[in-house]
């Protein structure tokens, strides 16, 4: 069967199981909440899919989310204090969050292309640096005092569960999917992940392509930071801690191979729903919230294990 269809069935089965255990799960309030959790995760998982398909990994997505949330919160607080309108403050927030994320991504690109670090180490460094920087900037306390009404704006639902930020995220993810699967940019991303030497031999400028990929990954993480800010009404250094785990999990559950060259964004989107759905479901059926990371780690192990098994059965044919 088609892998995406299979994943969708897993998602449906998950909804059924949680609903049977506690019928409250099947409600637009719970779905709206899952969607709000899904927004930042799917942005980072989309970034992660691009990077992993190219044969790399980006551990800095969560820290980039935190840093851009904090910096844009500080910028919005300044602008609000100077008497500007909520709309112009939010617009500035989006721009600053995107720019900070982009900067983190460019640093990754420099570390990988110029300093010649492997992506794992390069992004581990920026992950630590970005988290540290957000703690330095805030002293560890959340930054509030931004535009009034941002929470009301971002939590107003249409059709019972869709908010404006969720609609924006959906548009971004669809555009990223078209970009990855239908354009030359996407084709080169797969080629580099599949065989970097062949890509070079075909005249592709691998370095410049990797800059674009990591920059895009940072940008998407920065926008995820703005999403979280709008949801909570404050920016916090800790808001991205551990989120890289969820982003990698969503991509891997969706069928993206950590070896590079393989993956579909539709799978990642469903993978992100499975992750966020499981976390909400566990809380609703009464599992303590502290188990969350254990569950995500187990999901990664199961997904990667299943990929290995299906590869072996392919080879055995």
């Amino acid at each position: 069967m088609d892998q995406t269809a299979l994943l969708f069935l897993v998602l449906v089965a998950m909804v059924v199981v949680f609903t049977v255990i506690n019928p409250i799960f099947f409600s637009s309030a719970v779905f709206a909440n899952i969607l709000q959790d899904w927004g930042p995760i799917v942005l980072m998982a989309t970034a992660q899919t691009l990077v992993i398909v190219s044969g790399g990994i980006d551990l800095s997505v969560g820290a980039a989310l935190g840093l851009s949330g904090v910096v844009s919160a500080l910028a919005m607080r300044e602008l609000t204090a100077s008497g500007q309108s909520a709309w112009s403050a939010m617009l500035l927030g989006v721009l600053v969050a995107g720019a900070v994320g982009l900067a983190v991504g460019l640093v990754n690109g420099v570390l990988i292309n110029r300093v010649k670090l492997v992506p794992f180490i390069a992004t581990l460094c920026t992950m630590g640096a970005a988290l540290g920087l957000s703690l330095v900037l805030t002293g560890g306390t959340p930054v509030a005092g931004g535009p009034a009404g941002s929470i009301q704006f971002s939590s107003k639902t249409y059709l019972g569960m869709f908010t404006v930020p969720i609609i924006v995220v959906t548009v971004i993810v669809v555009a990223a999917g078209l970009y990855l699967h239908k354009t030359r940019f996407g084709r080169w991303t797969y080629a580099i992940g599949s065989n970097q030497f062949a890509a070079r031999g075909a005249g592709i400028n691998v370095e410049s392509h990797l800059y674009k990929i990591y920059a895009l990954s940072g940008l998407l993480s920065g926008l995820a930071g703005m999403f979280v800010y709008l949801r909570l009404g404050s920016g916090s250094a800790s808001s991205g801690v551990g989120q890289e785990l969820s982003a990698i999990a969503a991509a891997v559950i969706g069928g993206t191979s950590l070896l590079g060259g393989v993956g579909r964004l539709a799978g990642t989107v469903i993978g992100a729903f499975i992750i966020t759905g499981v976390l909400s479901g566990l809380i609703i059926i009464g599992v303590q919230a502290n188990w969350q990371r254990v569950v995500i780690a187990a999901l990664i192990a199961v997904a990667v294990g299943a990929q290995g098994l299906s590869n072996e059965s392919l080879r055995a044919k």
Partner: protein
Amino acid sequence: MTTAPIYEARNISKNYGSVVALQDVSLHVGAGEVLGLVGDNGAGKSTLVKVLSGVHAPEAGQLLLEGVVRQWDSPHDALELGVETLYQDAGLAPHLSVSANVFLGREVVKPGLLGKLGFLAQKDMDTRAHEGLERVGIAVPASKRSVTQLSGGQRQAVAIGRAVSWARKVLILDEPTNHLGARQAAEVLVAIRAAKAKGLGVILISHTLPHVLEVTDRIVVMRLGKVVADAPTSEFSADSLVKTITGVLDARSGG
């Protein structure tokens, strides 16, 4: 042969740190000529290929394409001007389809606005990849199949077909018949003759001396980073070629 060279290397030297890989190497190939480049492991053939194809810049010496001095900053520069290289065992991206590999780096985009955004004309490329491979005499697997699903011989056939169909002036083949069965190797030789008939200058690097003797017009022998012989293929026998490569028979002057 007295045709003017289409591609020429003059006095090329290249070091890796303190190791001298190429020392004052000169060679040339004419349009419609097949040049064999042979030598033992470590003779410098692969390094020379990388200089000719723009992967490495030489420390000294010149490259002349159609008599014009060229400097390659990247393989892309060489490709742009019609110098196509098939690298040893590294030709294809296995997760991509046959047509995606044939068009890798030269993707055709849709007309109009979508094309400006980089959207691919996939159907067009599938059809043209199939036609292009067929034209150079390669038994073609379906364009849409992933390279992972092809046998080693089929992969090599696609890689060679790709190189032959794109090359406009010079075609460099590094060990194209490695790991191939007799029938597939014969197909490769057919493709080389097709390239010659197309008027390309072909440089064939190979350890399989019978293939070299069969398909080339002239042979350059390298040993320890230097050219030790450069003579028409007709002047070599299998025996004398081996002796020249190993150094038992020294410095032929070419007849």
